[in-house]
């Protein structure tokens, strides 16, 4: 799976690099995050790797740099920013999951490349890409399948964003019910987990989901 490859490549690169110093590594990381500004790769490279035009990249970077002058966003700030959009509820859990999904190199911060790659997949990618990305978001431990507990966590975090004041009033068992119905729809072979193939197949069959994909028009 993609996730496994990532981890593997990460550890490989570390060993090959030889610069991995167990004692001082973590300290250096913190040091870097706090002081050193992170610079993204050149625009040309980004343009090759993503599906954005030059102008779009410029607009994105300007906004990003304005918000995070040092070029990276750590999880705290990310949660704060995301919560501004959902003032009624508690979006911290979902923001955490999002952060995990965007932070592809798992260094605890989202740089501009992560930001742009993620956006490129979601906004300019094919339906398969998007569904892949969504699956990646749900798969919390990145083991290639979604269990009911993982799904429940995700569902709860989404419902938390709604807050207390909803109509009709939120019952406690609604997330659980929702998870059940999700699994009923997605889990073809009823083995209690949803794999990526099941997920993509079921989503493609679902009319409303396909129709909702238009949500990503005009975002940038």
């Amino acid at each position, binding site marked *: 799976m993609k996730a496994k490859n990532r981890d593997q490549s990460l550890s490989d690169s570390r060993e090959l690099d030889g610069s991995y110093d167990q004692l001082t590594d973590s300290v250096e990381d913190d040091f870097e995050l706090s002081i050193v500004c992170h610079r993204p790769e050149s625009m040309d490279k980004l343009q090759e790797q993503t599906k954005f035009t030059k102008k779009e990249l410029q607009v994105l970077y300007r906004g990003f740099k304005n918000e995070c002058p040092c070029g990276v966003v750590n999880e705290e700030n990310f949660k704060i920013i995301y919560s501004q959009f959902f003032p009624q509820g508690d979006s911290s859990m979902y923001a955490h999951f999002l952060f995990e999904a965007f932070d592809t190199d798992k260094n605890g911060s989202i740089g501009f490349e992560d930001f742009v790659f993620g956006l490129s997949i979601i906004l300019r990618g094919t339906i398969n890409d998007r569904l892949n990305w969504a699956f990646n978001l749900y798969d919390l431990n990145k083991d290639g399948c979604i269990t009911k507990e993982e799904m429940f966590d995700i569902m709860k975090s989404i419902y938390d964003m709604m807050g207390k004041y909803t109509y009709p009033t939120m019952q406690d068992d609604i997330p659980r019910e929702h998870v059940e119905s999700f699994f009923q729809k997605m889990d073809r072979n009823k083995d209690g987990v949803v794999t990526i193939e099941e997920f993509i197949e079921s989503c493609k069959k679902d009319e*409303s989901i396909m129709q909702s994909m238009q949500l990503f028009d005009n975002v940038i």
Partner: protein
Amino acid sequence: MAAGVATWLPFARAAAVGWLPLAKKTMPKPPRDNSSKSDEILYVNVSGVRFQTWKNTLDRYPETLLGSSEKEFFFNEDTQEFFFDRDPEMFRHILNFYRTGKLHYPRNECIQAFDEELAFYGIVPEIIGDCCMEEYRDRKKENQERLAEDNEANEGLDAPLPPDSSTREHLWRAFENPHTSTTALVFYYATGFFIAVSVIANVVETVPCRPPEGAVKDLPCGEKYKLAFFCMDTACVLIFTFEYLMRLFAAPSRSRFVRSVMSVIDVVAIMPYYIGLVMPDNDDVSGAFVTLRVFRVFRIFKFSRHSAGLRILGYTLKSCASELGFLLFSLTMAIIIFATVMFYAEKGTAGSTFTSIPASFWYTIVTMTTLGYGDMVPNTVAGKIFGSICSLSGVLVIALPVPVIVSNFSRIYHQNQRTDKIRAQQKVRMARIRMAKKGTANAFLQYKQDRALGDRHSNSTALCVKNRSAFEYQHNHLLHCLEKTTNHEFTNEMNYSELCITESVDYRTSCSTSLSSQQGAQNNSTGCCPRRARRRAAMRLANSTVSVSRGSIQELNTLKSTSIMPQTRSSLNATMSDLKLNCGDPDFTAAIISIPTPPANSPDDSMPPSPAPIPGILRNTRATAYTHDTVKISSL
């Protein structure tokens, strides 16, 4: 939402991909984004300084001027930029707000100017960032206090009352402001004198005088010259009573007056006398009465009406009440502690003066305040040790709150000084503004005269037809229209003083002679009109005219609310509502008025109403036309 958060909105929308597969219902259609996709650079020209920014930056705050369509009003088609005729220095801060989302307050700018800029650009001052908010608030409060002080100073405590006020109001004003009339001043000094006399008498009557013949013991003077002192006391008390009753009568709010500090002091000062009168000449009761006499010394506090410094002191003490209270409390604590310790330390010794804890209080107080009378002295070693600790700590405890009180006093004192300074400056300022008005009034009259002359001699114009700007012509024409509308005409001071204003409170004056008709016209100087009527009429005239130019409205309002009718006759020109230039200086901004230098006008002030209007007026206006030194003053 913060500015930058808008940047993350696309991200948040993209993150919604996580909800898609879980959604129970179909997602709604996204909004159509009609605006141009590409971001463009906008040019903003503020008084010649060109700023450039992305359109998106300005769009972050759609409720402000720059973020909304309101800026279209300022768009200049020829140069394809937005032009604002405002302060470019301030604009820098405004633009930074759009860029960073934080509004900063520049410390070197005037708070009012900054507020005005914010108001213009539609930005609420509440969003000033935390870094600058405190400074902004402090400055704003200080400014408001200052303005309030100004207004109070302006309120014309010295200005004469409207003529139809009752005796009561006159009386009250005479009491509160002795400078307004001579009688009040006389009364003020008289009371002061009698307060002093009374206090001195109280003091002197206890001094031992030479005993009368036959006696050996020294008598206090009060006993020897009992009658004399009694008469003096009676006289003083009578005067104080009279004053108190007058004040009570004149007070606008009697209950408030009765509760005020000064009135309480007054009552306390005179009560002992009356109580003494009604008291029977009984020995035991008169013993109590003698103590009452102590209250006579409160008469000295009556001086606070006469002295501002005393009032300041009293006010300081009042405002430092909390510090004083703390001082008292901490002292009390320390006293009790040390007194107890000293008492038990000295308990054993024979002949010790520390007979009880309350007796030790005295020792503690005397020691802590570093007085050290020596009437009570510790003898034991422990007592001496604790005694020294006591005196050391006394110094500290007393020294701590004192600087606070001192700084309060200094602040209040300076504030008071400033008020006086402002008042003095205000007079000068008003005088200069009046001169400006006079100048402009004369300019208008000059215009009319020229027109009249022009009517008669079609080809040539009189001596001082200068190059008037189109603005002046139009303005003058406008004033002329107003004259025709109201069927009244503008005049200047000299004319006015010669005009006869028929003495009636109720109907408008008709200052109907105009310069043009006065070429060879007769002079209506039919005697002196009472000053009051003139002022009244002039005020009505002022009310009927309309101010035209931008700055003049402000000035007129200020003048109206301030001493529009001070004592001097030159104030009559405050009736002129138009602020115009004198001929010769076409630059005009609302903030700067050019006025001619005084020399031409000053003779007006001192000149009595002379029966030679025509040459005088001509001289006057001509002279004003020729002087070129201008004095720039701001229109408030």
